[in-house]
């Protein structure tokens, strides 16, 4: 059974197979060396409990004198030349002596035990220089001797060769040029070479042909994009908060800053300083501030009930731990609760570093009730010229509008005084609606009805499709100035009403309301105006009820189950003669399907109708003996609101403000320092509520200080110390990570841990040479990358012979060239490039290419929607794809992209069926296959199948196809031609595009459909997805 397998996993992770215990057969082919073979095993399995920090059972295995002595039991630990008598071996293999060591993991492998046995049996030679435990990583960087090199050799090749020869291995032959340009293009830019680039290189006779390619790639803007990917893993870059309310936030300017920094070969020490403390540089630039976004990438929980200080402390903890991992290769987080168990870091050290990062504000804010929102320092990004102009003009417009409003307000001062005076006069007049019980109620719909005490009519029984309800009202003494229709709810109505037609959607539609004066002789229709309602359905405003059109009306969806009202004023007040005149109101409901009122009621108003729209509290306020300033202001606002001219200006102001909002500069998250520094205390057991002693900012005691750095006590002091030539860790850790990205595994195979529990470097001198080279080149990343890819080691073939596989299964000695699967984003970029779709657009807000539906469906507020781009954004590089922490882009996850909730140093490199399914079936890849087929058919230099297949293979893997390969592909093509020609539907289905962004050039759709299968095949080839 071999699925979900991953061979390369040991390259990426610190599993227990020794990287240095090169595979042995039963008899070791080389001398067992304490430094290379034995000590790594002891370090890996034993030092945790039997090292400098802990000596369980009195056993210490990192000091020669102690290891050659006895344990607490009095037994000798190592008996020279007698492995069987050595306690060390017994506790590893003899279960009668107790649980096999180590107690906190799997027992040692047979091979590891064999190495220890053999070493003891050979006399347990432990060289003097290693007698005392001194951890290599904390020692100053040495400049290894390289003066005796042959001139053709790069120092890299020299160190690799030296170690390789110790094991009796040869190097592999150089790669052919086609493969070489593909390897180096993918390594440096993540994009495969074009056909032209391949051909040019193959035909370039000059001695520095390869160097020219390397220099071109290093200058390419694609370089920064490719190298940003790994850095964004370290920076836990994502576009959302993480946790329950995983809202989107704007960070992308930071991502672009990283790309630009790499493209401009910004000195790496400056790159570090800007990210830790760019804001604290004198006259910090916008770019330097953007860089501090590095530590604003931390996740943030905005769930109700989050405790802001706990959240803040968690964020600082994440910043300290990430800083230690990224820049020091140190597992400082182990010292958060107590002194580091294995490495020489104390809890005091931890909180001293914590103190540098502690002067930050809270990053959640209580916005209402129990709602918390993401918060904290953001910065406006500089705007482009046109955006700036637009914003300026909008702002001018706003100022003008505000001025004219002011003018109107001034001019209407007199009007306001009159209005106020009238309000004060009318205070005793009626301001309330009065319900009226109809004298007669008639309906055209045949319903049962009942006139209730308050004048409402409850209709039951038959539900007519359409109906007219007619109210005849008694005469009243005072003039009628306005009427109101209530549509009430009642338990007797389905869904409580107000409409009777549908319990779920109890809408009413009042098509036409007419109001008539009935005299002895005639019925005179009265003019109504100023329609108002408590609520109107979109597209169904209350004005429709008096527009004379039976097809329009007033409706109330979706506010079902609630009473509503509509009111109208009479154009002129109406006084009825008690004996001869009546008022008749007809509610015409002509929509159909029973959208009819269940419980209507009529009210009338006898007062000044202009008071109707004025709230009662306003009238009361106006009646006050003495008006305060605030009272006047409120009344003034009420008055202004009733002025149509002012309302118009207000509307324009609102519109302009909205536009200004839309044209506001983009923002990004930055670090700022509190003016008043916080005090920092040791947190007992890491608990922010149990504080111990106060600490001041300071660097770890075990690492060298640099007295030349100004003692500012802030992040700048720390950043300068990190990048000081006295700190041996930053250069070593950095070059090791770059090496791992280019060669597939680090010189130290645990790039996240350079501590005592990490692996030893396979080539210590090489590591130090590279670290030295980094500093002496002025911290040039491009210089180092050039050194690496120019080495012969890099340019070897990656052919693995059985002998090699046996001698060095992980290729730690680099007797052949690196070969490994591309990281997730580059799998996609590579396929996009091959299919000719890749967009070269740099920078900007994150993009949404195709993804299956229902990926974004977590709980939480303000969830954004995924809208797949239908333009060039659909085909941009993977690092621009929006990264939502709770639901990252699924095809990336299938190829081992991390979730970005925390710092990731090394991605695993798995090999699973889900990857196969992704490349075979993901509609995004189907789209690429189609475009690839289209490209081959329209661009191949010749139209024969064989030539086209050759072209397709060359696009995929740069090299020429072999005859076997061409035969296999031809066979597939022939079969698929038969399939598509037999069924037009297949042709349609395969060549249908999902997006306008993909334009096909091939007219012969049948051919295209057949070639789709070839393209799909080539994009799935192992070689295509490997660097």
């Amino acid at each position, binding site marked *: *059974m*071999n*699925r*979900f*397998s*991953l*061979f390369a*996993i040991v390259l990426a*992770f610190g599993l227990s*197979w020794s990287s240095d*215990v090169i595979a*042995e057969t039963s008899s070791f082919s080389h001398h067992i060396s304490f430094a290379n073979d034995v000590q790594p095993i002891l370090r890996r399995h034993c030092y945790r409990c039997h090292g400098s920090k802990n000596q369980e059972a009195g056993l210490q295995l990192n000091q020669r004198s102690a290891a050659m002595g006895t344990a607490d039991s009095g037994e000798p630990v190592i008996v020279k030349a007698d492995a069987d008598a050595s306690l060390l071996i017994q506790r590893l293999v003899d279960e009668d002596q107790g649980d096999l060591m180590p*107690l906190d*993991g*799997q027992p040692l*492998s*047979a091979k590891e035990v064999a190495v220890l046995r053999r070493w003891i049996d050979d006399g347990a030679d432990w060289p003097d220089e290693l007698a005392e435990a001194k951890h290599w990583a904390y020692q100053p960087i040495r400049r290894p001797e390289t003066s005796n090199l042959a001139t053709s050799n790069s120092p890299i090749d020299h160190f690799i060769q030296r170690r390789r020869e110790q094991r009796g291995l040869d190097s592999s032959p150089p790669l052919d040029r086609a493969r070489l340009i593909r390897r180096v293009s993918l390594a440096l830019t993540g994009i495969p070479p074009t056909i032209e680039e391949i051909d040019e290189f193959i035909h370039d006779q000059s001695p520095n042909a390869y160097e020219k390619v390397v220099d071109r790639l290093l200058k390419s803007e694609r370089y920064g994009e490719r190298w940003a990917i790994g850095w964004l893993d370290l920076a836990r870059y994502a576009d959302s908060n*993480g*946790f*329950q309310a995983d809202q989107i936030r704007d960070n992308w300017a930071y991502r672009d800053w990283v790309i630009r920094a790499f493209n401009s070969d910004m000195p790496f020490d400056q790159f570090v300083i800007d990210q830790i403390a760019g804001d604290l540089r004198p006259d910090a630039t916008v770019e330097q501030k953007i860089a501090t976004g590095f530590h604003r990438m931390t*996740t943030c*929980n905005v*769930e109700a009930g989050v405790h802001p200080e706990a959240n803040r402390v968690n964020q600082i903890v994440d910043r300290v731990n990430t800083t230690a991992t990224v820049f020091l290769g140190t597992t400082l*987080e182990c010292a958060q609760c107590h002194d580091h*168990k294995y490495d020489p870091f104390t809890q005091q050290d931890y909180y001293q570093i914590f103190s540098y990062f502690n002067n930050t504000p809270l990053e959640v804010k209580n916005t209402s009730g129990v709602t918390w929102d993401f918060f904290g320092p953001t910065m406006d990004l500089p705007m482009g010229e046109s955006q700036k102009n637009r914003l300026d003009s909008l702002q001018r417009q706003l100022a003008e509008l505000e001025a004219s409003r002011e003018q109107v307000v001034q001019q209407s001062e007199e009007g306001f005084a009159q209005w106020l005076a009238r309000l004060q006069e009318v205070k005793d007049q009626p301001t309330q609606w009065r319900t009226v019980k109809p004298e007669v109620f008639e309906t055209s719909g045949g319903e049962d009805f009942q006139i209730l005490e308050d004048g409402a009519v409850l209709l039951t029984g038959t539900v007519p499709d359409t109906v007219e309800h007619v109210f005849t009202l008694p005469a009243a003494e005072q003039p009628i100035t306005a009427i109101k229709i209530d549509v009430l709810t009642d338990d007797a109505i389905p869904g409580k009403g107000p409409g009777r037609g549908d319990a779920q959607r109890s809408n009413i539609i009042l098509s036409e309301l007419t109001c008539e004066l009935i005299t002895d002789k005639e019925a005179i229709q009265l003019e109504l105006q100023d329609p108002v309602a408590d609520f109107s359905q979109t597209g169904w405003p209350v004005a429709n009820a008096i527009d004379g059109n039976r097809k329009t009306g007033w409706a109330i969806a979706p506010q079902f189950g609630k009473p509503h009202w509509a009111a109208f004023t009479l154009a002129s007040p109406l006084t009825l003669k008690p004996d001869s005149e009546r008022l008749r109101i007809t509610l015409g409901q002509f929509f159909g399907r029973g959208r009819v009122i269940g419980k209507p009621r009529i009210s009338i108003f006898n007062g000044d109708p202009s008071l109707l729209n004025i709230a009662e509290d306003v009238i009361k306020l106006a009646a006050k003996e003495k008006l305060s300033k605030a009272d006047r202001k409120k009344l003034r606002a009420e008055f202004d609101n009733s002025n149509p001219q002012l309302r118009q200006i207000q509307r324009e102001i609102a519109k302009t403000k909205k536009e200004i909002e839309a044209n506001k500069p983009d923002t990004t998250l930055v670090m700022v320092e509190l003016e008043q520094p916080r005090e920092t205390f040791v947190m007992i057991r890491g608990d922010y509520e149990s504080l111990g002693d106060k600490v001041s900012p300071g660097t770890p005691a075990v690492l060298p200080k640099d007295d030349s750095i100004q003692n500012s006590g802030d992040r700048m002091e720390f950043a300068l110390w990190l990048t000081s030539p006295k700190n041996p860790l930053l250069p070593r850790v950095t070059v090791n990570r770059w090496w791992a990205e280019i060669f597939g595994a680090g010189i130290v195979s645990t790039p996240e841990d350079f501590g005592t*529990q990490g692996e030893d470097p396979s080539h210590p001198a090489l590591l130090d040479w590279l670290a030295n080279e980094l500093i002496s080149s002025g911290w040039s990343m491009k210089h180092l990358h050039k050194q690496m890819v120019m080495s012969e080691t890099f340019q070897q073939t*990656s052919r693995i012979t059985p002998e090699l596989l*046996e001698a060095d299964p992980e290729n730690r000695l680099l007797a052949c060239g690196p*070969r490994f699967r591309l990281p997730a984003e580059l799998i996609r970029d590579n396929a996009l490039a091959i299919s000719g779709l890749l967009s070269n657009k740099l920078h900007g807000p994150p993009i949404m290419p195709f993804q299956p539906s*229902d990926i974004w*469906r*977590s*709980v*939480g507020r303000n969830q954004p929607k995924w809208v797949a781009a239908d333009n060039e954004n659909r085909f941009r590089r993977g690092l621009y794809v929006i990264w939502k922490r*709770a639901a990252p882009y*699924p095809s990336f996850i*299938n190829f081992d992209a991390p979730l970005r*909730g925390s710092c990731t140093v090394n*991605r*695993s490199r*798995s*090999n*699973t*069926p889900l990857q*196969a*399914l*992704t490349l075979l079936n993901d*509609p995004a890849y189907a789209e690429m*296959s189609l475009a690839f087929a289209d490209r081959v058919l329209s661009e191949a230099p010749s139209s024969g199948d064989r030539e086209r297949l050759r072209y397709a293979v060359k696009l995929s893997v740069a090299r020429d196809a072999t005859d076997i390969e061409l035969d296999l*592909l031809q066979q*597939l093509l022939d079969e*698929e031609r038969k*399939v598509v020609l037999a069924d037009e539907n297949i042709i349609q289905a*395969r060549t*249908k595009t999902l997006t306008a962004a993909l334009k096909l050039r091939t007219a012969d759709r049948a051919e295209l*459909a057949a070639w789709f299968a070839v393209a799909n*095949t080539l994009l*799935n080839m*192992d*070689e295509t997805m490997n660097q």
Partner: protein
Amino acid sequence: MNITPTALGRRTLLQRSGFGLGAFALSQLLQNESGASPLSNDPLAPKPAHFQGKAKSVIYIHMVGAPSHLDLFDFKPVLQQRNGEDCPTDLFESSKFAFVRNLPKLLGTPNDKKYEFKRCGQSGLPISNLLPNLQSVADELTLIKSLHTNEFNHGPAQMFMLSGFGRFGRPSIGSWLNYGLGTENQDLPGFVVLITGNVLGAGSPAWGSGFLPSVYQGVEFRSKGDPVLFLSNPAGVGVQSRKRIIDTVNRLNQVQLADIGDPEIATRISQYELAYRMQTSVPELMDISAEPKNIHEMYGTKPGQTSFANNCLLARRLVERGVRFVQLFDQGWDTHGSVFSRLAGKTKQVDQPIAALIKDLRVRGLLDSTLVVWSAEFGRTPFAQGTNDVGQNTKAGRDHHKDAFAVWIAGGGTKGGMSFGETDDLGYKIAENPVHVHDFNATLLHLMGINHERLTFRYQGRQYRLTDVEGQVVKDIVA
């Protein structure tokens, strides 16, 4: 624990790839197998447990949002009597809550037949009438009433419960087991996730593999669209064409393998073969229409629907096929308001299928080797959130409670028909036998034959484990 290479894995690889290795001699690959070489090692190959554990697989049902355990499993008569009284100040001030800030009123289970507890089975385990079906399998359940956790917000608490850590970055329990034990089924992932309702707040990290290789993470089987993402062929690609394409890919890869000799290519070939088989095996697995009528009646399942019942039946089908860890998430238990009516609604959805799952596993002889876990990220407070109108049809809810909550486990070497741990009279604090999340997880691993202190992964210089540096196996509940 580390991945140990197995001879089986390597040999099968070579047989499976159905390919003469040419220059790449089979014997030479196999020669290495006693050694520590990782080559050709299948990280998901079954691996021996640390000791004989009864459970072979886990069905882990997580009720997202946290059910009101007080009204389901931990009945508090005193709380019921004191319903409506102020919550004792000393208790309220001793802990933090997500929503409630002012001194709340106690909230007892309604004194109503519908919410009554019944002593069930031979064991007399008290279970609410809201779970009538579960009552009938009471003797299978091991109730833990004294669980407590460190986190009181959903996202962090979900991560803590499932990964032993309240932030992101650590492996989930399913991926730990996948890593420690591998899986029995060759054609399915070892860790499958089934979801009803929205995805939980913690998102996919809840079934992520943290720092473990990503091959161990859970794979979500979806009830809409492709059950596994990208399972179905692109439009216009039929079964024959798909087979032809995969065959061509694999032949091209074999040519490469012969030339380059990278064993990773051989793995790639077998992964494509497996992908092809999964295209048949997964839809077949997900299609429950062929299950007999009595099974559908027992679970309350309807083929083609998205429902918790369907997921329970799928869980059984997955375990039957040798999947190591099946995780069910069901959303909608976060009852800050109207706790009683909403609890009645939710229990109605899950009671019948959960009981059916237990019975079905029992009948099939799978319950002894399958550990069923019913839990949540925390419990709910004994006091009311919102008004608690005594005697009214209360709209009150319960806030998050981390200091004491009840979960149960069944099958897989648990004693069954017993309850462990007690809370105080108000259900506020643990009165006896506290079980921390780390203890709980240590116990789950123990039931699987894993010593939680030895299931470690070295990362950043530490031997990381699910239980951090804590965790005591609760021996009293292990059969």
